[in-house]
């Protein structure tokens, strides 16, 4: 079994930055990522596409620096289990190009980033309903644009960014249904100072909004009760704006209600998580430089809490440097650590403002009875409520009785909704309601793949690359 000083899961900004620092210190590291090339989601396919913004250019520079450093990068690798062996060592089990492999590492950095918050509205499982992020991935990886009438329903920085990227590609959304609940200014005002400390980000958002308006994309504010309608596939979108219910034909509906940390790997390792009432998600409890309740394991980037990619890069550097020190190495950073920490802190000050402004509506956290909560097992909110009324108090019991969380995605799309729905139904806090217990395998593995792991002979990590 191949061994490294550090295993890093995720080749986004945090993972790449951590790898660069570990490599600088002369330690060995492997970076494991599911996608075909490094960059994470924000810089997806950045090496193959034209860079048109400062974010793109800086992201491309980071990827180049990562490529130059001496760590091993294993793309196309799905980590399905991490075990802690004795003495703070970790055994990482993964599948890559059809082969299952194991690697050992003395330290682990989890940089698995974020995923979009589930948006459980009626009809959200219909073909033709996707996330804004999904459409952006299609644009980034292949220049693909929506065909036919496309409607965006959601809120946050990402839909604004995507809409402007689409306009640059010559395609106009049929409508932007903005789901920000009324009273945004009142909610966000207490956090204004933090936002103003990040003027360039705010200004960017306002510019995007202005561009969308200038292109005469219909923007309908304070939209509620979005529904995707159709037989077997999307044909129209219904929504309420003020006192009127409207319906518009649509071929593609793109949903977005913010992003949340991807906590599966960390939760499977027993890392303590706490409910963040401002971001409405679970976050790992972090010490300095990403340390967690599990010795030898650090978390960097959006996986520790949503703060954007530039924060993630600094976070990754700090986690990498701290990891090097923990192994007795010399942590020499091009940028002094205090400078990184200060810059990171300033970026984080924008977040409370955005979280308050773009707060998801309660109906998304505790959906109406007929709405599917678990996409995989098709468990509805009614099923969950019935289970609670029958005496199921927590996520594990509800899962056992309704199968919610048992499907292939293992609660990635339903876990948050399950927590907030239980909390709402029982009149308790989400913290009390708890989260789904996540167990390996994190990704499906066949029996054949498992058997090949322990088979003697040449099938080991050395032949992987």
């Amino acid at each position: 079994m191949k061994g490294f000083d550090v295993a890093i899961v995720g080749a986004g900004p945090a993972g790449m930055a951590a790898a660069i620092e570990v490599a600088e210190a002369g330690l060995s590291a492997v970076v494991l990522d599911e996608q075909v090339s490094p960059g994470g989601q924000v810089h997806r396919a950045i090496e193959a596409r034209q860079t048109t913004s400062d974010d793109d250019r800086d992201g491309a520079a980071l990827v180049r620096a990562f490529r130059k450093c001496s760590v091993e990068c294993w793309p196309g690798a799905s980590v399905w289990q991490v075990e802690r062996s004795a003495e703070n060592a970790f055994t990482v089990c993964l599948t890559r190009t059809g082969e299952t492999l194991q690697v050992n590492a003395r330290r682990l950095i989890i940089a698995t980033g974020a995923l979009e918050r589930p948006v459980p509205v009626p009809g959200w499982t219909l073909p033709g309903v996707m996330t804004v992020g999904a459409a952006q991935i299609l644009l980034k990886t292949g220049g693909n644009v929506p065909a036919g009438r496309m409607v965006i329903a959601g809120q946050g920085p990402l839909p604004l960014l995507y809409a402007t990227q689409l306009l640059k590609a010559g395609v106009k959304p049929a409508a932007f249904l903005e789901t920000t609940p009324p009273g945004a200014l009142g909610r966000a005002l207490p956090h204004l100072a933090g936002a103003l400390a990040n003027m360039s980000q705010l200004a960017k958002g306002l510019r995007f909004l202005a561009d969308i308006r200038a292109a005469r994309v219909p923007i309908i504010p304070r939209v509620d009760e979005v529904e995707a309608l159709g037989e077997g596939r999307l044909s129209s979108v219904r929504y309420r704006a003020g006192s009127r219910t409207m319906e518009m034909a649509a071929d593609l509906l793109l949903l977005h209600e913010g992003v949340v940390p991807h906590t599966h790997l960390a939760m499977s390792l027993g890392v303590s998580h706490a409910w963040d009432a401002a971001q409405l998600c679970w976050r790992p409890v972090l010490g300095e430089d990403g340390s967690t309740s599990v010795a030898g394991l650090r978390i960097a980037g959006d996986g520790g809490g949503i703060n954007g990619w530039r924060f993630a890069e600094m976070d990754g550097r700090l986690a990498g440097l701290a990891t090097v020190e923990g192994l007795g190495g010399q942590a020499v950073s091009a940028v002094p650590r205090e400078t990184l920490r200060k810059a990171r802190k300033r970026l984080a000050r924008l977040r409370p403002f955005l979280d308050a402004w773009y707060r998801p509506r309660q109906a998304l956290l505790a959906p109406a009875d007929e709405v599917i909560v678990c996409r995989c097992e098709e468990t509805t909110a009614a099923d969950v409520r019935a289970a609670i009324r029958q005496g199921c108090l927590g996520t594990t019991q509800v899962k056992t009785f309704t199968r919610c969380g048992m499907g292939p995605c293992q609660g990635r799309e339903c876990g948050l909704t399950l927590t907030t729905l239980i909390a709402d139904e029982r009149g308790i806090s989400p913290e009390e309601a708890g989260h789904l217990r996540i167990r390996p395998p994190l990704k499906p593995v066949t029996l054949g793949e498992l058997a090949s792991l322990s088979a003697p002979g040449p099938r080991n990590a050395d032949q992987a690359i």
Partner: protein
Amino acid sequence: MFRKPPEALSRPVTVFVQGRPVVLNEGESAAAAALLAGSGATRSTPVSAAPRASYCMMGVCFDCLMVIDGTPSRQACLVPVREGMQIERQDGAGSITS
């Protein structure tokens, strides 16, 4: 559901979605091919045979489970296209017998 402007085709690869040829770039996913093929349909669910298509495109939702080159239950959004790849809808749970 999605289309590729001609100028965006740079490293063409031809794959087959339900037997129909689709041309897209090397580096794109089988799920992208399904979306470019027209309906984007990926599977019908084991629970109720409900039709599904890709949702997240990043490997977390599992709605893009398809039969690719004969292997069932592959997350199409994580499979990079190769010349001649056969991409087919999966009906219900993946079959482990051929």
